[in-house]
């Protein structure tokens, strides 16, 4: 919605409230919550984290609660229990981290990337960032602040309204999706079954999606069936994809196996840049660990990884550098080795220190 439309909606909601109706709003937008809600419930990973009223809190605090919070003592007692599961997902301790490599050459350099949205506004507004060989760059942010558009513009699925993209020294902002795939840009989309995989097709066909037109996979326009079958078998074994057979529809595999299959396909292309969006969303702990291990392996194989996730723990535990996105812009950068969770939370809420008091 445009800001004007949103204002009309809120007006309507207030009118309805006056006539005695109750409304439940589900949103990622903290300012909207602060503007219209009488009571706020924060949910994370399917659990209630906290219930509070807008008078007793601030947008910055909501942001911290949304992304998980390390220090439980500042929360009311009854909420501590709800937070217990989160404690298990601390960022890795420094000694567990993979050793930082020497920063390599720049793989991706984006300057002033702008993407229009359907209301004539901008879903990305002058984003600039760089990704080097052998590093994982995390993008933190509350959902809907331009992260998906960033991934789609980088992979060619969304048109650029402005800015430029330098990939391995080559201008790519106007290149087709296919060209970018051939040049080694891999993409883990935010919803594997919506666009990443074809659920009714089998494993071989899904593995072929990015490489079917390469000479190893097809010659003179003809698919090399036997060749491809062996190749698929090898990948399934190497990436530990558990499936009854290579022909059964991948829609029937578990989420973890689907994601491993998707990553097998992307990584088998030997990408120089991996754009991974919510790579572990909806996965169990084991599968999520496997996916994280694959991303780290890419990093040690000196690919650049852009990790876009709403899960701040994931971003903080994997990234060498972290950018925070808010409202289509990069509003801050943090060092992955010693990230300040509270500061990141404030930036995710679109606040900086001086602004915070004013909003409360």
């Amino acid at each position: 919605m445009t800001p004007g439309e949103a204002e009309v909606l809120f007006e309507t909601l207030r009118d309805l409230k006056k006539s005695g109706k109750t409304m439940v709003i589900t949103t990622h937008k903290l300012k909207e919550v602060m503007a219209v809600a009488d009571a706020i419930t924060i949910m994370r990973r399917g659990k209630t984290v906290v219930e509070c009223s807008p008078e007793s809190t601030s947008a910055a605090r909501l942001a911290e609660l949304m992304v998980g919070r390390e220090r439980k003592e500042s929360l009311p007692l009854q909420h501590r229990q709800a937070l217990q599961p989160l404690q298990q997902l601390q960022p890795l301790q420094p000694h567990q981290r993979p050793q930082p490599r020497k920063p390599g050459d720049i793989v991706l350099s984006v300057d002033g990337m702008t993407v229009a949205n359907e209301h004539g506004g901008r879903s990305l507004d002058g984003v600039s960032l760089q990704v080097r060989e052998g590093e994982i760059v995390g993008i933190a942010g509350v959902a809907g602040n331009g992260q998906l558009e960033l991934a789609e513009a980088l992979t060619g699925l969304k048109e650029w309204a402005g800015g430029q993209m330098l990939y391995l020294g080559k201008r790519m902002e106007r290149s087709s999706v296919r060209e970018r795939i051939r040049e080694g840009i891999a993409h883990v989309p935010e919803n594997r079954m919506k666009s990443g995989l074809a659920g009714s097709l089998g494993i071989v066909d899904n593995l072929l999606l990015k490489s079917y037109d390469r000479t190893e996979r097809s010659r003179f326009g003809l698919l090399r069936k036997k060749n491809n079958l062996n190749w698929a078998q090898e990948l399934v074994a190497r990436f530990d994809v558990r499936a009854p057979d290579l022909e059964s529809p991948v829609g029937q595999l578990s989420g973890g196996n689907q994601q491993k299959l998707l990553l097998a396909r992307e990584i088998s292309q030997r990408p120089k840049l991996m754009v991974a969006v919510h790579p572990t969303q909806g996965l169990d702990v084991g599968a999520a660990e496997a996916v994280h291990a694959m991303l780290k392996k890419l990093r040690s194989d000196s690919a650049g990884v852009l990790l876009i996730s709403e899960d701040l723990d994931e971003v903080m535990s994997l990234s060498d550098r972290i950018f925070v996105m808010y409202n289509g812009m990069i509003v801050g950068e943090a060092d992955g080795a010693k990230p300040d969770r509270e500061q990141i939370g404030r930036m995710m809420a679109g606040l900086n220190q001086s602004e915070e008091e004013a909003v409360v």
Partner: protein
Amino acid sequence: MKRESAAEVIGKADRRKLVRLQLPFELHYDHLKKGGAWWMPLAWVLAALAICGIFIWLNGMNPLTVYAKMAQGAFGSSFGISETLVKSIPLLLCGLGVAAAYRISIWNIGAEGQLVAGAIAATAVTIYMPSLPGGLYIPVMAAAGIAAGAAWGLLTALPRAWFGVNELITSLMLNYVALLLLDYFVFGPWRDPAGFNFPGTPMLLPEQQLMTFQGTRLHYGLLFALIAAVAFAFFLGKTRWGYEMKVLGANPSATKYGGISINRHILIVMIISGGLAGLAGMSEVSGVAHRLMYGLSPGYGYTAIIVAWLAKLNPWAMIPASLFVGGLIVGGYSVQTIGLPSSMSMMLQGAILITLIGGEMLGKYRFVRR
């Protein structure tokens, strides 16, 4: 307005509940499930025969006698078989064509118009190129038929690809345009001056006619159709194009994500679709009617839609499917001798399409024990 939307919500919930009556099992919709086993279409055909049987019985006849008579007419004599084959040629060609489009959810119902466009173009060759060497007529007429059919298909494909214009509507409307164009030519400038006002062109010269198998009306267009079926199966199963079609049919978003152009495929399938229908039109003119005439096609382009679904869009299965539907048409003529209208076959065709499409939908439900 609020009340309506609430009713809508409840309506949806009710529809979901409809299939959850208190039975020992539940039905679950599974969109990934393939629409049942290969024999399912046969079961649905039997269901359609049973439904029509009720109407025949209500008319005071024994349905089994009627069906036996139809089978006898279609397959019981060498004349019947050759007639059935003659009908199955355009059905197979058009069926393959629409199946190509249906595989990627492009709902081309314009095969009839594309067939007619091909027929007109093939006839134009005989009229405007009177001095071609004899042996060249057939290939040139075939090429003209394919080209015209493909062009007619592109009239649907281009607006669809560029502006998202609904292809169901444009392809259907273009059928009427093509049919009226045919009427214009056969009632107007191309009418045979020696034809006693018959709305048709002069008869084709022998070298402009497709050869026939000895002593029958069965013409060599049969080879076109069989070659087209084999080629179609080959391209679908073995080539990059076939792979792209498969992904596009399964998940268009994944196609986009994989960098495969959907618009390119829309154009390609409509060229194939129209080209095959155009070839069918050429072979009707050159192999059967031996002239362009009013009412050239008794709706082959529409009937081919049934062939395509009966074969579940599989090119191999389309060969028996086109024979079956061709037999249905020929059998329909033969029941006239026992006092039933030949529209019997139309009724059966309609019933089959309904049970097939309904069956496709039902096939996606799973039985789950409570």
